[in-house]
């Protein structure tokens, strides 16, 4: 029996070795060596140089803001969804997932066209005699792009956690005299923590590592850590430095995963 199960997992094992383990080893190899192939920690220590540290700080700041905005938008929505009848909520979830079927690059490019100085949004605003918005090529546009792209990743785990809360627990709280505010803060919110943690990491990690959103909506004027790594590979041909910085970024991702593992022991906040 066990041997049969092992055999069934072979394709996945092969997949993860070829596409996950080997590339990871290559990143570590490049990250920990210099051009001559000798061992060095310089590529990792390079994160401390002024430009890299600044790019990392900015990335963290922007992704924290985006994660917070996503959370504030998604929580009420997830609560509404969780309280709906099955037939209604599956429709709304479909609406949420539908845009994800379209390529993420195309959607971001669409935002570029929408937000341009003489773009669609500003044309409509001018037509209505309203002041134009000029956020393209600023950090605000990047935050907008992040929130737009990653919002579904926050909604779904939250919805999942909220819909698992036993109605009776809430009823009991009400029975014991708690008003809605108390019920929310002492029952609903604590019980949805696994979903919150999962949602936060699902938004924070991709936002932290993005380079496409920042170069498309930031006009390549704003350098995030993802852009630095991208440039090291494609422009400067310095794979060693690019890999070293990727390792640093991996540390943040691992910290994030540890946090989710601690708070979400039962995997309740998983996507669906």
């Amino acid at each position, binding site marked *: 029996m066990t041997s049969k199960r092992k055999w069934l997992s072979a394709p996945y094992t092969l997949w993860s070795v070829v596409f996950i383990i080997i590339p990871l080893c290559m990143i570590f190899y490049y990250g920990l060596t210099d051009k001559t192939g000798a061992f060095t920690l310089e590529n990792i220590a390079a994160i401390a140089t*002024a*430009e890299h540290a*600044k*790019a990392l700080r900015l990335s963290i700041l922007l992704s924290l803001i985006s994660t917070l905005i996503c959370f504030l938008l998604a929580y009420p929505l997830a609560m509404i969804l969780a309280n709906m009848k099955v037939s209604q909520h599956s429709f709304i979830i479909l609406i949420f997932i539908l845009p994800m079927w379209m390529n993420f690059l195309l959607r971001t490019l669409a935002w570029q066209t929408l937000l*341009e*100085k*003489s773009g669609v949004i500003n044309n409509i605003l001018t037509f209505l005699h309203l002041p134009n918005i*000029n956020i393209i*090529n600023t950090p605000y546009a990047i935050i907008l792009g992040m929130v737009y792209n990653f919002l579904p990743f926050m909604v779904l785990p939250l919805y999942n956690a909220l819909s698992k809360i036993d109605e009776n627990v809430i009823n009991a709280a009400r029975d014991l005299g708690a008003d809605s505010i108390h019920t929310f803060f002492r029952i609903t919110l604590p019980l949805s923590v696994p979903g919150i943690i999962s949602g936060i990491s699902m938004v924070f990690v991709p936002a932290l590592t993005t380079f496409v959103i920042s170069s498309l909506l930031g*006009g*390549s*004027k704003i*350098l995030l850590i993802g*852009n*630095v790594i991208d*440039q090291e590979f*494609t*422009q*400067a*041909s*310095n794979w060693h430095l690019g890999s070293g910085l990727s390792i640093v970024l991996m540390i943040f991702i691992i910290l994030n995963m540890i946090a989710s593992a601690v708070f979400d022991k039962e995997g309740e906040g998983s996507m669906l």
Partner: protein
Amino acid sequence: MTRINLKNKMLLGGVMLLAAAGMAGCGSSGGKEGGQVIVYNWGEYIDPETIEMFEEETGIEVVYDEFETNEIMYPKVESGAASYDVVCPSDYMISKMIAGDMLAEINFENIPNAKKNIGAQYFEQAKGFDPENKYSVPYCWGTVGILYNKTMVEEPITSWAQLWDEKYADNILMQDSVRDAFMVAEKLNGFSMNTTDPQELETAKNALIEQKPLVQAYVIDQVRDKMIGGEAAIGVIYSGEAIYTQRENPDLEYVIPEEGTNVWIDSWVILKDAPNKENAEKFIDFMCRGDVAVKNFEYITYSTPNDAARELIEDEAIRNSEIAFPDLSQYNNLETFVYLGEDGDALYNELWKEVKSN
């Protein structure tokens, strides 16, 4: 320096698919008798019809692949991950490849059209990166200048300094590549664009940092669409794109700034370990033919060094266009990029990162 046009790219893709289907058909009968030639060229940098013509006339099958920047092309060719015969890099990249012993000497006896049709001045200019004219055959050339929208500027643009004018804040498009961006700042300050002097580079870097708040965006190929759409008043652009943008938006004007600029050449080279050297020579010779070169010129609008082709251009305005065929003797301080060595490249990249993160 990307030349992508989605529609044409799709068309090209279709052509290649057809070619592939054709190949598959021939596969059973042992392939085309002429063998094949593997070409690695810039995206959107050839009229696909000329490839078909070449295949029909010679029976040699063309395997065609495209790259976006010299920097993306180089590691692929260097590692030998894919074997190519003919590549079309730019000036400074050719000198880097010569230094790396990656190129084969070209036997010009097998490429009679090169010396016959390509203007001698272009070979002369190519000596900047290929001192003995042994390794490369010029394919396209041009300048880098300023494209501006006549309806959006108050006075004619003549100088790089106007890219630092606060009047045009948020209306300026800069090139998003190290050497091109630094070239602007270096020419502005009267330096060589091939300088590796740390002090000069420091000055150039500070100029770029000072300019950054005025820049709307750093772009590569989007400069074309943004200028056509009136998104910005002035932008740094390659001369080959200028003709195309003017066709789409007649308000646009191209100028070579008075402080001088970059005159670049993209040339055909044959790789040292090319599997099909003879076919590669036939391919280059074919591309140097006047009637073929003029077809390519009309399709991609990048200036051709091919004198025979220029004579075949029907539209007189284009044949004598100051943009496509400027009289270079009228301008000062024109230069061509040379390879700066590994340390030079690293220094530029470092400073560019400082500009971008500021």
